[in-house]
Structures are given as C-alpha cells and as structure tokens.
C-alpha cells in the first residue's frame, strides 16, 4: 500500500468574478521514507496541492489518503511548513516551537524536552526566550522547521522553505535539513522552483506545468546523487546531466515570450 496517495485531484478556486482551475487531474504516490520535490513555475498550483494534502480544504474532485486514511480526518500526522516562517511575533521562540503540541493538547514534559533538543540540534541553543524579530531569516526558518517537527508528523511538507534566504544560508540549510530528515527517516515533500535544490535534496522530482496545474513529468534522481549531501550533490559529476534534462523540460513548458 502506498504511504501517501493523491488520486485524480482537481481543484478550482471560485471567486465572485472568476473560477481559477489551480489543479487538473493530479495523481501521484509517495513511499514511506521518501524525499520528493514538487518543481514548477509559480502559479502552477504547488501551494494549493500542499494545502489539500495537509487537509486544510477539500479538493473539488479527487481524494488524498495517508496510510489509507483520508487526510481530512488525520490529526497532526502531517507537518506543513508555509512559504514564509510565520513565527508568531508575540510569542518567544520556546512558545513558538511548542505551539503545535499546545494546540493538540499533548504538551508533555517528554515532548517539550524533545522540541528543545531539536532546537539545539538545529544550532539554535540559547534563543528560547528571544522573540522572532531578534533572529535572522535563516534562524527563523530553522525555528519554523523545529515547530513543524515538534509534533512528530509522519509526513513533512516544506513550501519553498529557502526561497527568501541568501544563497550561502540556503546552501547550509539545505544540508542541515536534509541531514535532519534523513536521520529521522522522514517522508518529506519539498516545494521549490530551484532545479538545483530539487535535484540535490530529493529522491524523485515531480515537474508541474501551469495553467492549469498538471503533473507534467516525474524524474528519478540517480542513486549516486541521492547518497550525497545536497552541497556535494551540486558538485557531483552526475549533476549537470540531470540538471540539463529537467531544465530543457521546464523550458519546453514556458513559451519564450513569457519570460
């Protein structure tokens, strides 16, 4: 049985003046422990798909199941990190990372200790009593990740987690996040529009096309790249070839005039 199964999902947003089809007939499966990326131009429905998988709203058509159960009914099994960190500015870092546990009424001393340990492992010791705005962008992103991981979700989804960071921070965080998730054996979905990031971090890349958002193609990343850290993968000899393949495919999606 598949761990996560997205089956014939179709989603249309209705407003007073328009009906925008964000996703059209998307089906895919993710295995347990797998790290996959959703790659595609902006507006192709990546965020919409994550929201549906997270069970925030139901798709107009189709179903999403996690371990055979509909995601709308699942509780706290899916961690979803939004496109920006969205740390609560009026809560200090400790209160922020414990938020999920508090909401789920599962704030036991064990789980609290676990969350604080995660914070330490992310290289953020001693910031517990500080407030989000006292932290740099990269630090905030790590705090947001700890907040998402603290509830122990079975599936982790990251929506363009590094897109607002400077390049150096981004490369370092890629390594850190990849390492952390691998050590937990977590299943994860990463949304990105950076081809290099998709290749270097994941086991499979799902390429989406826009208007309407559709699953265009799936790429399997070669084993020798998977085993490397993201930073080393970017420098691996097998990297340019797969980069070129995906790049050409992306180019073919976007008419030259739209750039």
């Amino acid at each position, binding site marked *: 049985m598949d761990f996560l199964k997205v089956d014939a999902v179709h989603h249309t947003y209705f407003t007073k003046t328009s009906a925008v089809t964000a996703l059209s007939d998307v089906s895919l499966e993710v295995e347990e422990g797998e790290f996959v990326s959703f790659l595609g131009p902006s507006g192709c429905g990546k965020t919409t798909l994550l929201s549906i998988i997270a069970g925030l709203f139901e798709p107009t058509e189709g179903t999403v199941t996690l371990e055979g159960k509909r995601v709308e009914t699942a509780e706290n099994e899916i961690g979803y990190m939004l496109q920006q960190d969205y740390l609560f500015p009026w809560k200090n870092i400790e209160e922020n990372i414990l938020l999920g546990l508090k*909401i789920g009424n599962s704030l036991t001393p064990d789980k609290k200790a676990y969350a604080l340990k995660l914070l330490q492992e992310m290289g953020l010791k001693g910031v517990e009593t500080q*407030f989000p705005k006292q932290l740099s962008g990269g630090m905030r992103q790590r705090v947001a990740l700890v907040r998402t991981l603290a509830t122990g979700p079975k599936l982790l989804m990251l929506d363009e987690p590094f897109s607002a960071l400077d390049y150096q921070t981004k490369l370092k965080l890629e390594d850190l996040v990849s390492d952390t998730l691998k050590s937990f054996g977590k299943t994860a979905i990463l949304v990105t529009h950076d081809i290099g990031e998709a290749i270097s971090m994941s086991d499979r890349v799902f390429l989406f096309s826009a208007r309407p958002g559709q699953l265009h193609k799936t790429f399997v990343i070669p084993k020798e790249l998977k085993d490397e850290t993201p930073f080393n993968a970017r420098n691996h000899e097998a990297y340019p070839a797969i980069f070129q393949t995906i790049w050409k495919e992306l180019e073919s999606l976007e008419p030259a005039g739209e750039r």
Partner: protein
Amino acid sequence: MSPQENVKFLHQKYIQSLNREKKWVRFYQAVIFIVFFSGWELASQKQWIDPLIFSAPSKVWGLFLTKIQDGTLMVDLGYTLSETVFGFILGTFLGTLLAAILWWSPMLSKIADPYLVVLNSMPKVALGPILIVALGPSFTSIVAMGAIISIIITTIVVYTSFKEVDPNYIKVLQTFGANRFQIFREAILPASFPTIISTLKVNVGLSWVGVIVGEFLVSSKGLGYMIIYGFQVFNFTLVMLSLLVIAVFATVMYQLVELLERKLIKNGS
C-alpha cells in the same frame, strides 16, 4: 586614543546631547505652564478679562483648598472617576466582546453591518435622556452613558483588526488541527492587542465625554454637576476648578493605559 575609547567617547557625547535636548524641552514646557497661569492671573487682576467669567488661578486654588478641607471635592471626584472608569472598562470590554462574536459568526457580521453603521453615525449622547429615564437618574445610567459612547466604535475598529490578521497565521494553526476558539486565542486576539490598546486610548477620552454629559443631565453629583451648577449660579471659579481637575485625571488615566500597553505588548522591542 584607541578606536574603542573613541567610540565610547562619541557615545557619551551623543548621550550628553540627548540629555541636553531633553532639558530644553522640559524647560520650554515649564515656561508655557508658568506663562499661561501667571498671564491668566495677571489679566484677571488687571481686569483685561472679565474675572467673573474667567476667574483667576488664585481664586481657583483657594476654592480647591476649601473644597479639599470640607471634603466635597473628593466626593464629587470619586463619583465621576468611578463612573468614568466603569464606563470605560465596560465600553471597551463589551465592544471587544461584540467584535469577537461578529468574528465568530461571519453570517451575523454581514447581517449586523448596516445596523452598526447607523449606530456608529448616531451621536450617542443624544441617547442620554432615554437612558436616564430607562435606568433612573443614577450611577448606573451615567456609567451606561460612559460605556455606550465607545461600544460601537470599539466593535467596528476591533472587528476590522480581527479580520485583517494575516490568514497565514490561521493556516499555521490549522495545520496543527486548531479549532476556532484556539485560533482566536492564539492568533486573532494577540495579533489585535495593539489595536485594542489604541482604542483604549481613544475610549478614555470618549468615556469622559459620556460621563460629563450624563452628569449634566442627571445634575446631582460629580464634576460634571459642578460645572453645570457653577454655570447656573454664575460661579465660574467652580467651573474652572472642575475643568482643571478633569484635565489632570483624564491625563492620569491615559498614562495608565500607556503603562498597560508596555506591559501587554511584548515582542522583544
């Protein structure tokens, strides 16, 4: 001099210049105060202004001492102050509660919208006579005046701020499976604290208006009554005394709200 000492020295100079500026500000503020009161006294003594209407600081002071000694000022002040504080708290609390109810039920808020607009544009003090007849010429009706004047505007302002909370904070909470009450407690309310505090500041002023007008109408006790009574018996020293006392205590209340603001809003700044 090493660069470090240099920075220290410059910082000290900077602090000194700040202090100097602060001293000058205080100095001019004191000058305005002294010039205003001595000018008033002088103009009244020399009969440049009608002393019967404008009184004089010395007369106001004299009356102040008398009324302190016989205890009547404290009674009136205590009365007005408690009405204002109750009216203010009630108005802000009920306004925020209404806003929370409207946020809870989008349907209700749509239905209530035109009524809120009408109620808001209505001059609330015009309701005074009805309140007094309905609730009796008492403490209650004056507190009601102090409250009613700020409820609707508080509701509208706070509700607007509830609605403007970044939906992504709500999304974060929903990914953790939060219910509507948890969303309100963790995101909507704390995100709106700055707005609530600023309505508090406005409401301090509004409640004073409501209470003073209420006391005009009820005409039995309080600083508002002192004004109306002074006006009727043409004792403007009494009116001036009342005005000055109101000015002092309205300012004190405002400062207390600012203190509360600093206590309540913490985000490391």
